[in-house]
């Protein structure tokens, strides 16, 4: 044992092992992603830029109940309602200060109608602060841009009412199915 240790020490064995590892790694594929050329697709359900959803007829779903604004931890949602012609509630302004938002998606969880969504879009840097202040039109536009069609419906099915699904457990809940099948 002792002699073995001395030999190891003199021959710098552990250093040679380390150097062999770095040399071996040199010939493996790099994990770097060349970002703007190879963009990274966000996973479904990513909490990115906000959007106000529309129903099938293209009308905004939001009714202006203000729950999202109440629950928002950073208080970045502002809603102003007014009375319409037939004495109904009309959402006059709906504004989100994106720079304040911390993307916890509590608003999505709070909304009883599924009117607000977080899209998978995450590249929205800009030079001016004003462009991050989303008003109603911009938010609705976001919906058309990033969530139109089936994507929006799918989003709400999977991420908007997760609790409701699981109070009564569905059959296809994910469980471990053995390591061999998914190698």
């Amino acid at each position, binding site marked *: 044992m002792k002699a073995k240790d001395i030999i190891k020490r003199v021959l710098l064995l552990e250093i040679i092992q380390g150097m062999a590892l770095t040399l071996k*790694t040199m010939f493996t594929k790099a994990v770097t992603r060349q970002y703007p050329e190879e963009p990274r697709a966000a996973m479904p359900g990513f909490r990115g830029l906000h959007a106000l959803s529309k129903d099938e007829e293209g009308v905004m779903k939001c009714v202006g109940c203000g729950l999202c604004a*109440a629950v928002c931890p950073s208080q970045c949602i502002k809603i102003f309602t007014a009375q319409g012609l037939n004495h109904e509630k009309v959402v006059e302004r709906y504004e989100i200060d994106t720079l304040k938002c911390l993307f916890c998606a*509590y608003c999505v969880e709070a909304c009883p109608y599924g009117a607000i969504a977080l899209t998978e879009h995450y590249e929205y840097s800009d030079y001016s602060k004003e462009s991050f202040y989303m008003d109603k039109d911009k938010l609705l536009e976001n919906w058309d841009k990033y969530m139109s069609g089936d994507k929006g419906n799918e989003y709400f099915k999977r991420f908007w009412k997760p609790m*409701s699904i*699981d*109070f009564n457990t569905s059959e296809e809940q994910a*469980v471990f*199915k053995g*390591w061999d099948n998914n190698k």
Partner: protein
Amino acid sequence: MTKTKDALRQRELTINMGPQHPATHGVLRLVLEIDGETVIKCTPYVGYLHRGTEKLCENRTYLSAMPLMDRLDYISSMANDVGYCVAVERLLGIEPPERAKFIRTMMCEMTRISSHILWLGTHALDIGAMTVFLYSFREREWIMDLFEMVCGARLTVSFPRIGGIRNDVSQEFLDSLYKFAEEFPSRIIEYETLIDQNRIWLQRTKGIGVISAEEAVNWGFTGPTLRGSGVDYDVRKYMPYDAYEQVDFDVPVGKEGDVYDRYRCRMEEMRQSVRIIKQCIEKLPKGPIMTPDAPKFTLPPKDKVLKDMEAMIHHFVMLTKGPLTAPVGEIYSSTEVPKGELGFYIVSDGSGRPYRMRLRSPSFVHVSALPRLCVGSLVADVIANIGTIDVVLGECDR
């Protein structure tokens, strides 16, 4: 004689290490008085990242205080969230369902791995082994992707909820997590090939920052920093929360209480975490992910909100005022986050907001002991000591 003493005194040099310094891991500031290269006095200054989390919590409902917890120890946000939820659940006296417990445990251990490999990378980088840093980031990225897959965010997750979790995991996630658990141990061996037996690493870490078991307890050390000194104290074992009772794992302890032992402890902990993750996946039961037994403290199911008047009112009240029927009392609840013991002392006055929320953060205690570890050693050892206590200033300053 006094003249000579004064002349000798002239040789001391005051170095301001931080708040901007490559090795202080954030905005920690150490004022070092050095004589040659030997540190004779060390004074840490913290508070550069103080955001008043405790004050903010007092003015928020239990639900909306949770995103603040993500931002305490931003390396291991999931563990903080779980710790917070466990604390509030203990206060409210509710119990999450089994499936949620297992998923939370799984997530906590993923966080532990991600935090420890980030620690390993930066610690090794401080000591000069820069390749370990990039290897560990390769795996950290993998865990981040898994987090994103399950909850849509990579760093500030806000995933658990009081009484359960936010959403269920997918089959795809479980499979890829199992794959990760299968492959990760070979990656640990890779890191160890580079540094574990390396003579320079051994010289830099053995016998540095030694602290005995009694002293470490007296200073209030927790987590791997304490276990490196040989104290077998792990909140997961002595006061199990979530599914830790139902999984089998060991708590590695060190012997000498030096930097190397703490490093070994963390490396072994990662292996144990992999073990726990595997068991969690294998044992994951079917069932609800949000407790149905405590309708007063959790949000009602979403499809009920628009059909049932009571549920609707409850939904509104829960979101705007918090759980109004919270019991009066105070509770201290601690969980084992990667850095140590994260404690929540919550005083409730029966309203929907905590009356007083106190956060006992491990980093704060560990930083306070830096002078004890550093005085008498060399400047290079200060770096090793900052690394070994695994400090995150967001948590330290709160």
